[in-house]
């Protein structure tokens, strides 16, 4: 369990994180979503005690980070920026971390196996690809077999197979009852992995909700219809109680009539159709709407 209370971070005059209060619970994957520069990485660094908060605090299983004995056995993290010496072999990198936290040395081989780096254990990461570097970071996070895991944009640099692998890994870790906190700026990615969602924009909390609830509230379905004679079509739809909306590309969107009914109305009125389709607004759009509003609001409030 990670608990944030009023967490704030200012760098000079910019406020990167403002008054964040939320909890990350065990047993589910919690997605941490926000556009570029919204403060996700800063928040994660503060959780680990790397950056000092300007105000507020973080508790990890009820304690401050530096109060944890052998912290790597409580919480493991993959950070956004590299945290590996390129001249030290993967094995020695994990060895020095294991030694400092009294982690059994067989865990080193276990995690290297798990992330698929067993073959390059004795190699120096300066020759690693982006994805291999990412896997070494994930191995470091898993090393202490911690109950809490935090990943900052873990799919960065991974190929489709790697992305699939990390998704399944996160789900499995959560299913084992662990706390999994993962950041992304892609809603579509989160929709596939996260059970719970925390959205921030401009360093402020915008949503703290279950994924299912977010989808239910935001996944708008509608019918798109296109016709060379859309004036007559619109009139017919309105007579039937629909409220079609004109789109810039000339098509109409109707939320309150099913596609079949729209087709019937067109036929009854002898209107030619060029398109009749069922549409679902993407979660990505919902997310952008949510964060865009926050950006606009703050731009105006800042005056």
């Amino acid at each position, binding site marked *: 369990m990670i608990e944030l209370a009023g967490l704030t971070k200012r760098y000079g005059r910019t406020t990167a994180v403002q008054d964040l209060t939320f909890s990350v619970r065990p047993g589910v994957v919690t997605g941490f979503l926000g556009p570029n520069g919204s403060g996700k990485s800063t928040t994660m*660094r503060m959780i*680990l*005690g*790397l*950056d*000092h908060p300007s105000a507020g605090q973080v508790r990890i299983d009820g304690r401050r*980070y*530096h109060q*944890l004995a052998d*912290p*790597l056995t409580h919480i493991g*993290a993959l*950070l956004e*920026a*590299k*945290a*590996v*010496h*390129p*001249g*030290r*072999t993967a094995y*020695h*990198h994990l*060895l*020095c*971390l294991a*030694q*400092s*936290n*009294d982690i059994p040395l067989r865990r080193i081989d276990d995690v290297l196996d798990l992330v698929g780096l067993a073959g390059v254990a004795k190699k120096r990461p300066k020759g690693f690809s982006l994805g291999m570097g990412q896997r070494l970071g994930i191995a*470091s996070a898993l090393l202490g077999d911690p109950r809490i895991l935090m990943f900052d944009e873990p799919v960065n640099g991974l190929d489709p197979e790697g992305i699939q692998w990390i998704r399944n890994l996160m789900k499995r870790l959560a299913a084992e009852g662990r706390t999994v906190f993962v950041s992304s700026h892609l809603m579509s990615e989160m929709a596939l992995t996260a059970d719970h969602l925390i959205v921030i924009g401009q360093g402020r909390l915008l949503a703290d909700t279950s994924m299912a609830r977010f989808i239910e509230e935001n996944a708008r379905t509608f019918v798109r219809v296109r016709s060379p004679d859309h004036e007559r079509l619109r009139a017919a739809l309105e007579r039937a109680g629909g409220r079609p909306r004109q789109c810039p590309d000339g098509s109409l969107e109707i939320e309150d009539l099913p596609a079949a009914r729209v087709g019937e109305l067109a036929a009854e009125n002898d209107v030619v159709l060029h398109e009749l389709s069922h549409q679902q607004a993407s979660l990505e759009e919902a997310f952008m709407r949510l964060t865009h509003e926050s950006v606009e609001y703050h731009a105006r409030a800042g005056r």
Partner: protein
Amino acid sequence: MSAENARRVLLSEWTKIRSVRSTLWTLVTAIVVTVALGMLISGLIGHNFDDLSPHERMTFDPTFISFAGTSLGQLALIAFGILVVSNEYSTGMIRASLTAVPVRGVLMAAKLAVAAALALVVGMVTSFLAFFLGQSVLGEHSTDIGQPGVLRAVFGGGLYMGLIALFAMGAAWTLRSPMLSFGILIPFFFLISGILANVPATEKVGHYLPDQAGSRVMRVMDDGEQPYGPWAGLLIMTIWVVGALLAGYAVLRKRDA
């Protein structure tokens, strides 16, 4: 913090140091350069002893001459001190290190202890090697370790090298960036300090610079230029080292990693 805890962090820092080749090479360089240059200069002076002025012959210090390579060799130890610390920042490893050992003073103390112990061992080996090999080429003008003040000078030479590496570490914790640390420390110890200590306008202050004061311990003959004795000189250097380490600790505690 328990002794068991300290043992683990020390072991971890030892693993870090021994697993990066570039860092270890600086130590090898320190030994080779100091000893070889010391031998070269000792050999040249030994052969041309008769060309020296009577005053130079009177105050000839065979021990100090065998340490002539220190001015260059110490740069390798300074590089060692800088690399051990600032590589953590330039590579981002510091973030992994601090998540593993979040109490910053503990991380710093363990790294200093391991790196300083290593630098001290290398310093002692260098100093004794430089002395004995230097004397062997000085021939009839050489001295031996049993003469008054000689063992102190040789042992002191080892301490000096350990201290100069520690000073570099303190400066690197303060400055963080390897470029900045190298850019300031190397020219300073290679040129600037020597100039300040020899130009009349600044020599009074220049004598109190860390390397100038510290190297007094390597002299057996007192040339009367420095207003303090060998151990007082080393103490002045130690004060500089403590100052650099305190500054480094203050920066480490206060700033974001």
